[in-house]
């Protein structure tokens, strides 16, 4: 428990067999573990145990009606998922969704952050206004947008018709191609503020003298953006993007509320939940959930490698 070097060094100086620092360190180490115990127990209960059970169910033919009667079937459930074309449809949907919406969020977030970084009157008000979408529950924003996307009475069709962008009202939430657009629109609207704020925080930490130097060198605003701002933002931007990717890959609510239960427009989490609770196949559902977990874990590993610098930095 005690560090091997300090006590010896300290006792060599003072001659005392038990110098105070080590007792203090021991007391603090003990306190640390006592302080951590309730949290560790809680985490084991709500995270460790359920996760382990899900992994176990993935190797069984568990059924919702009687979980106790499940039989070990090895890789059968996993094989079932991997051979199910519906699963691959959801994989494709999820990844397409994650890449498209995170790309748009980053782009819009960057534009908003750069605007909010400029000095103008009413900046504080606008910064607060931008936070509003973030505060609205996903389900609520999905329903707000579903109403705006309504095929007959929706305001979006009305505006688009008036502007001549479309010739007839579109069924935004019914057709797979269009409902994908609708889901992306809701997600981008809801999470762009988050992205914008992270980027804004990073922007405000950039040293001002670099811009002075760039200006003296004759760089215009566009050049200094691409040659100064963007390279300096790379780190924070990468972290924010991976963070959002993780979120987007486990998406569930937007799809559930906006498109219902059609397999053509369902994310991986939706597939897993449908298997578990609508088809009552806990085994197959857990196998697909475990696959999703593995994918997220892979991304998390990347996130940790990228975020590592700062994790141990302070």
């Amino acid at each position, binding site marked *: 428990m005690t560090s091997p070097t300090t006590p010896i060094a300290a006792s060599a100086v003072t001659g005392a067999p038990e110098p105070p620092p080590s007792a203090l360190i021991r007391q*603090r*180490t003990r*306190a*640390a*573990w006592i*302080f*951590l115990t*309730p*949290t*560790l127990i*809680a*985490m084991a209960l*709500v*995270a460790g*145990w*359920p*996760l*382990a059970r*899900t992994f176990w*169910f993935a190797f069984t033919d568990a059924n919702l009606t009687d*979980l106790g009667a499940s039989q070990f079937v090895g890789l059968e459930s996993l094989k079932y998922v991997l051979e199910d074309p519906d699963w691959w449809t959801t994989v494709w949907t999820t990844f397409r969704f994650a890449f498209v919406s995170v790309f748009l969020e980053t782009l819009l977030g960057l*534009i908003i952050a750069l605007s909010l970084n*400029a000095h103008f009157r009413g900046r504080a008000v*606008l910064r*607060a*206004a*931008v*936070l509003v*979408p973030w*505060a*609205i*529950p*996903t*389900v*609520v924003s999905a*329903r*707000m947008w579903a109403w705006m996307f*309504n095929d007959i*009475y929706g*305001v979006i069709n009305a505006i688009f018709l008036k502007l001549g962008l479309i010739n007839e009202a579109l069924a935004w939430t019914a057709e797979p191609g269009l409902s994908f657009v609708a889901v992306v629109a809701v997600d981008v*609207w809801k999470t762009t503020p988050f992205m914008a*704020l*992270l980027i804004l925080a990073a922007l405000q930490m950039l040293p001002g003298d670099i811009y002075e130097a760039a200006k003296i060198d004759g760089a215009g605003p566009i050049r200094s953006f691409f040659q100064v701002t963007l390279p300096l933002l790379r780190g*924070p931007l990468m*972290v924010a993007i991976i963070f959002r990717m993780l979120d987007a*890959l*486990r998406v*569930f*609510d937007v799809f559930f*509320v906006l498109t219902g239960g059609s397999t053509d427009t369902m994310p*991986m*989490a939706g597939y*897993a*939940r449908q298997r*578990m609770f609508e088809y009552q196949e806990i085994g197959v*559902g857990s196998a697909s*959930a475990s696959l*999703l*977990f593995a994918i997220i874990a892979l991304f998390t590993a990347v996130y940790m490698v990228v975020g590592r610098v*700062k994790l141990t930095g302070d």
Partner: protein
Amino acid sequence: MRWIKKIAFWLLLAVITVYTLFPFYWAIVSSLKTGSSLFEVDPWPKEAAWSNYSAVFTAQPFGQNILNSVIVATAVVVLSLLLGLTASFALARIEFRGRSLLLLMVLGVSMFPQIAVLSGMFELVRWLGFYNKLPALIVSNLILTLPFTVWVLTTFMRELPKELEEAAIVDGATPATIVFRVFLPLLGPAMATTGLLAFISAWNEFLFALTFTQSDSVRTVPVAIALFSGGSAFETPWGLIMAASVIVTVPLVVLVLIFQRKIVSGLTAGAVKG
């Protein structure tokens, strides 16, 4: 040239504002329309009708749903802050073997996809006898808020001055005294920020609430709003849904506007510094 730039910039700001606020504005406008006027695309309600707002509470157990959400979110926040405070002290201020591993674990758990624990959690909830009861949601929501709370409080706790702790140690204070008497008062703002963020995430939680409850009276607000349906399968009560949406959103928006600065620092502490 200069004023063209200026106009373009203000135009951009206007577009940003309209983009972020319009859906919320449209929900308010729609919630004030009834009958056939709901189905006309009018930027302004001809006369504000409040009937949707009262109907939400009479046609649905929406008052109960709100109460459920308040109970669940409050309990989750209190539990997370209590557990998170002591844990984050240990993680932020005490050097011990395995600390960085624990930090990585906490970060890892905060990235769990909820779906990965759904079947295991369902079994746990049923085994505890919590199915279709609010404690099911309190227990399961901890997986969202606890790692997050520990993580953010750890970042805040790290920034407290070392001298303060050393002075307390010299005075013979135990770690418990340091946490509750010395640090807790200083951490007030950080606790408020973290608690608010945890409250919002528990308030918004959908997957567990959808799966672990069955009856209307146990549902939380997001599930109630997601499942609102009219008399027939073809009739969606949009006026009611918009009224309900506005009711649950306004307090959140007010909170966010008041604590705007704090929220931003909490979010960046949770994400960027990780």
